């Protein structure tokens, strides 16, 4: 596994800071947010992509948009962590499954492009070159990852906003189970700390405006929560067929045992009011894993810190887990990382695996005033050492896609 996040330039550092209850939210530096309604985000500080460039990507790397850089870095670290040399495998046995979105166009570009279109007769248009080509993740991932790591097998680019990372892992799980690949590089990458993205979400009223207290802004399940905090980052997991992993003597961190996805189709940006649809994703994922709800100890919640999600998710967990719900440890690591959107599910999957490996549930920070509508055990403030045999990770998207992954401690 590999990751870059607001909590660190590696997954290990991210995990250490998460267990310590640190917040990665700061005032925005990627553009000047003076006067903006939202001036805070989870940025990846001091990220230096040049460390992750190799001869196969050197020529194009300067043109990689930031999300792709973050993704390629996470993938490089994941490959290293897995001790895998992809070139020893046949290309048809390695695939890629990523959650991503087309790079958003910045205000200055829109302004510049508009001049072309409106100030000339006939209107002129910008010339699209190799740089704009790489804005499309479906192109960029091949250039930055497939070429480098010999990934000639299944290729899924899932673009389902906040659920994309989880759904990308779900697609990878399927490809391995169906025998279509032995190894899948699966995850997500995103950097929505951009003018147009911050503005778009702010206009919807979805973002926290707690600009004076960035580290306390993301407060999932708190009565005083006022929206989510945008963040950037990437996480990639190496999923591998068990027999294949055994043959090469790989270290196994955990087993991916189930996946479920459902749709909330009654409102595009509001969470499922009664939690019915997210509950379906959890129930289907558990059924897919052949686990009873009572066998789960930890839930890495979607927990965005918006009014509607956290109440809806709480109801959904009650629906899916019934009488076992109060016994679950449920935490939202978005309280520390912010919301990595297309990468969120991937990072949270990696965190869930580490929770199982280290037998410790990361905390939900900033939960000083619990919302009575949110009545589960959210592991407030401090990480909690506890036995975790199996855990789930939830993601629910704008656009209605709900997805849940189930992980289990690996045993023969």
């Amino acid at each position, binding site marked *: 596994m590999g990751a870059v996040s607001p909590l660190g330039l590696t997954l290990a550092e991210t995990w250490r800071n998460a267990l310590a209850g640190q917040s990665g939210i700061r005032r925005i530096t990627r553009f000047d947010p003076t006067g903006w309604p939202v001036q805070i985000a989870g940025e990846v500080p001091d990220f230096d992509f040049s460390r992750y460039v190799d001869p196969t990507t050197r020529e194009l790397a300067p043109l990689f948009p930031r999300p792709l850089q973050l993704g390629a870095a996470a993938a490089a670290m994941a490959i290293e962590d897995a001790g895998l040399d992809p070139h020893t495998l046949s290309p048809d046995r390695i695939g890629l499954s990523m959650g991503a979105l087309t790079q958003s*166009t910045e205000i200055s570009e829109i302004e510049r492009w508009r001049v072309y279109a409106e100030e000339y007769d006939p209107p002129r248009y910008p010339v699209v070159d190799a740089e704009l080509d790489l804005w499309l993740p479906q192109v960029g991932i091949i250039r930055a990852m497939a070429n480098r790591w010999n990934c000639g097998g299944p290729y*899924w680019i899932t673009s389902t906003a906040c659920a994309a990372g989880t759904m990308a892992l779900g697609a990878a799980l399927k490809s391995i189970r169906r025998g279509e690949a032995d190894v899948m590089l699966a995850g997500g990458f995103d950097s929505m700390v951009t003018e147009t993205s911050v*503005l778009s979400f702010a206009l919807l009223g979805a973002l926290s405006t707690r600009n004076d207290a960035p580290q306390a802004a993301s407060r999932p399940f708190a009565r005083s929560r006022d929206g989510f905090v945008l963040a950037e980052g990437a996480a990639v997991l190496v999923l591998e067929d068990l027999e294949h992993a055994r043959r090469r003597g790989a270290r196994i961190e955990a087993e991916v045992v189930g996946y479920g996805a*459902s749709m909330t189709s009654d409102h595009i940006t509001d969470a499922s009011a009664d939690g019915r649809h997210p509950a379906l994703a959890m129930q289907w994922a558990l059924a897919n894993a052949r686990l009873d709800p009572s066998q789960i100890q930890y839930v890495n919640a979607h927990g965005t810190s918006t009014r509607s999600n956290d109440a809806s998710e709480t109801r959904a967990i009650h629906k899916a887990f019934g009488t076992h719900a109060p016994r679950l440890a449920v935490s939202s690591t978005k309280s520390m990382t912010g919301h990595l959107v297309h990468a969120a599910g991937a990072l949270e999957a990696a965190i869930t695996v580490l929770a199982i490996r280290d037998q410790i549930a990361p905390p939900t920070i900033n939960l000083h005033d619990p919302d009575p509508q949110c009545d589960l055990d959210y592991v407030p403030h401090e990480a909690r050492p506890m036995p975790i045999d199996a855990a789930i990770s939830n993601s629910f*998207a704008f656009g209605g896609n709900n997805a849940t992954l189930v992980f289990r401690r690996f045993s023969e």
Partner: protein
Amino acid sequence: MNSPSSQRRVVVTGEGLVTPLGRTPAGILDRWRDGPTAVGPITRFDARSLPVQFACEVRYFEPRQEVRNRKLLRLMVGGEDFAFRSATDAMTQAGLRPGGYDPQRVGIALGCHKEGFRFQHLYEALDASRGADGRLDRLRFIQQGVERIPPQIIVEALANAGLYYIAHEYELEGVNHNLLSVGTGGLLAIGAALQSIQDDDADLMLAGAFDSWVNWMCISHNVFTGLLSISQERPETIHRPFDLRRTGGLPAEGAAMLVLEEWEHARRRGAVVLGEILGFAMATGVPSYDHAACADAMGRCIRLALADADCTPAEIDVIHLNGEATTAGDWIEARGVRMALGARAEEIPATTIRSATGMTGVATGAIETLITLEMLRRGEVPPIRNLEEPDPELPLRLVRETIRGGRFRRGLVLQRCWPSHCAALVVGRPPAEAGD
């Protein structure tokens, strides 16, 4: 590779199309064979300064007549209205409406190529934010401009919005896939839906894709990729797949949606079965700039799709080629077919509708799947338009005159896209009719 549950057979029970050549498989096939083509001057925007000024537009489509949900229509961009209407037609043909199925067992898989919200939404805000020098003043933008931006830009920018609109209309609650792609997305969506039904995650899936290349960004991008021709000859004859003088194609737009259904489920409710989806596979050429590696990937993905369909090259009766008509692309494709099918590649009639519809982007695979099913039902294979001098280095049985009266049981649909991804789908006539 067969999964344990692949005894669940997947059939097509609904078809919806919005293409430059029309909207029914029969009508489209006739017009592909007899013309006229859909090529015309670009009318959607002023393209006079672009190197490409002709396109295959969907001229007959009046969005307000086609999409009754006005609230959703206002939010639709980039061909989402084509997809929505195609879904409506497919569901209507399949005899399905909300309340008539278990929404938890019905899912959706959509291929798309989404680029963001309409920039025009920001223009008014930008105009209200100019300093004395006429330039954009950032502070003024935030203080005075932003309030003029419609909050809907976030919804327009969602890559999964098209999927949501359809799911909303049909109250779908089941499994779902929203796949970004440059060109293979239509086949990927059908493949993902096939697998979802085979694996018992759903009984019924809406699957398909939409795209529109008739905008400056897609045209500029695909002049860069070399997929669009900048030839100044007679526009109707520009797109000539597998021809010695091929130079690329013309931009187009469209969508296709299929209702895929588990066969028993379809039989129980007495649905009319239009065809069967038998197998799917995909592959990526790595490294992407290596043509031989790309041909390898094409060959590999055809072999895997045949294996997935449990069928041999001898059982394939027609090939629907990608036919992007670039020098390298057609070579890679022909080479891949040859590698996978051996000498049989010279016997199977191979054609493509591409030179009649234009470059329909991500929608192509879904459109061509439905047209291939129509070819199988009719026993008729129309020729590749504009193919005058077949490239001798591409040893396929390229169809140059309509073949009629054949007994075609199975078809192979191929897609390749920038920069090196490819996918293959094996389709068949309705199971009962095929006698197996």
